[in-house]
């Protein structure tokens, strides 16, 4: 079995999870504070990948970032950046596709914290940023871990969206899920089984680890 698709998948999942932690934490915090039309619309957009067929999302990303159209053409001509059929494109698609798995649990956990925690911190002279870092985040560690692991695991299983924007280029965009599909198409069931079993085991270990780490914090890894 060629291990490159597995390593590529793990690399993609790790980079996606890191980017979403950096982007997702402040975004989830902002969304957790009150309601407004802008927030409702943004939240609906973030949630769309949960219900949208991945191929639809992949198709629009392919159109948007094609070097022959709009943003894609501008990025290609100005910065010589090409997202389509590249690892960068996979990362971009994965970040968008897995965003609800990072934002959802963190936002929900922040909303469940008593408002008086941040209020107490403000009366002690602490800024919103310091309160977020020193009071709020440490008290939602279990949910952050759940969000990170769910994001990682979800990225491992991406197929439609990465196939649309990345294609099937060995060593560049051929991730494990595509390798499974490719092996089945070529009647190579042994390789398909090896890739599938590896993905199954990694995902199973991750879900189990959420249960173990959150043993005393949550009743289910989905909380």
């Amino acid at each position: 079995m060629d291990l490159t698709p597995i390593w590529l998948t793990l690399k993609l999942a790790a980079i996606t999870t890191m980017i979403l932690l950096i982007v997702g934490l402040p975004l989830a915090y902002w969304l957790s504070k009150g309601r407004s039309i802008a927030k409702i619309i943004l939240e609906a957009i973030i949630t769309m990948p949960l219900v949208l067929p991945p191929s639809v999302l992949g198709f629009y990303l392919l159109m948007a970032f094609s070097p022959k159209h709009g943003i894609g053409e501008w990025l290609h001509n100005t910065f010589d950046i090409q997202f389509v059929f590249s690892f960068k494109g996979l990362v971009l698609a994965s970040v968008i596709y897995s965003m609800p798995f990072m934002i959802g649990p963190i936002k929900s956990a922040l909303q469940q914290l008593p408002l008086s925690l941040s209020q107490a911190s403000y009366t002690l002279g602490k800024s919103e940023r310091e309160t977020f870092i020193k009071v709020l985040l440490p008290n939602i560690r279990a949910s952050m871990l759940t969000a990170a692991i769910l994001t990682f695991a979800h990225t491992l299983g991406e197929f439609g969206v990465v196939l649309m924007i990345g294609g099937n280029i060995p060593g560049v965009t051929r991730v494990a899920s595509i390798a499974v599909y490719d092996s089945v198409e070529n009647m190579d069931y042994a390789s398909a089984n090896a890739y599938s079993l590896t993905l199954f085991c990694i995902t199973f270990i991750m879900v189990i680890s959420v249960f173990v780490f959150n043993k005393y914090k949550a009743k289910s890894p989905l909380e």
Partner: protein
Amino acid sequence: MISIDIEKKLKAYRGEQVLKIEAQFETGSITKIYGPSGAGKSTFLKIIAGLIEPEYGKISVDDAVWLDTVLKTSLSPQKRKVGFVFQNYALFPNMTVQQHLEYVSDDAQWTNRLLTIGKLETFTSHKPEYLSGGQQQRLAILRAMAIRPKLMLMDEPFSALDPKMKSELIPGLKSIWDELGTTVLIVSHNPQELEGLTAREIYVESQ
């Protein structure tokens, strides 16, 4: 001198009620605020702390204007820096007793003195979940005191303390308030709760 004149609409079971309070508090005085449940006593304290905005209001502390809804001026809670004791304590679950005080002040001598007054010296490494209700309430008081507040707002601050502990705690708090010249407003239901403190009383009722 703290001068307060505020008006705030409160949601009630049957429509709306209006909390309307006009009062002055001498610097260094202790005032007990009492009234029926739902009258807006806690809201009143939060308005002073800058955690809730009233529809109309003016709050000035000595020469400084903290709030003036007409001039659209409102100091943030961080700038008002009042010592606030929340009814639900609002302790930080991730911090130990010591860390609660260190979050506010890096003056070890001062925080040790507070720990002694609150009789929590032997619990410094405990997180709130491992403290009794009375210990949590004392920690909430000490944390608010740690900023050396000029104005202390306390919402049912002694409700979980037994009479002995309360009688030992209050003189310690009183001596610090006298030292700092702190003005203290205490919301309380219980007529006996403020025994040991000479307090003026204000009755709050929303209409």
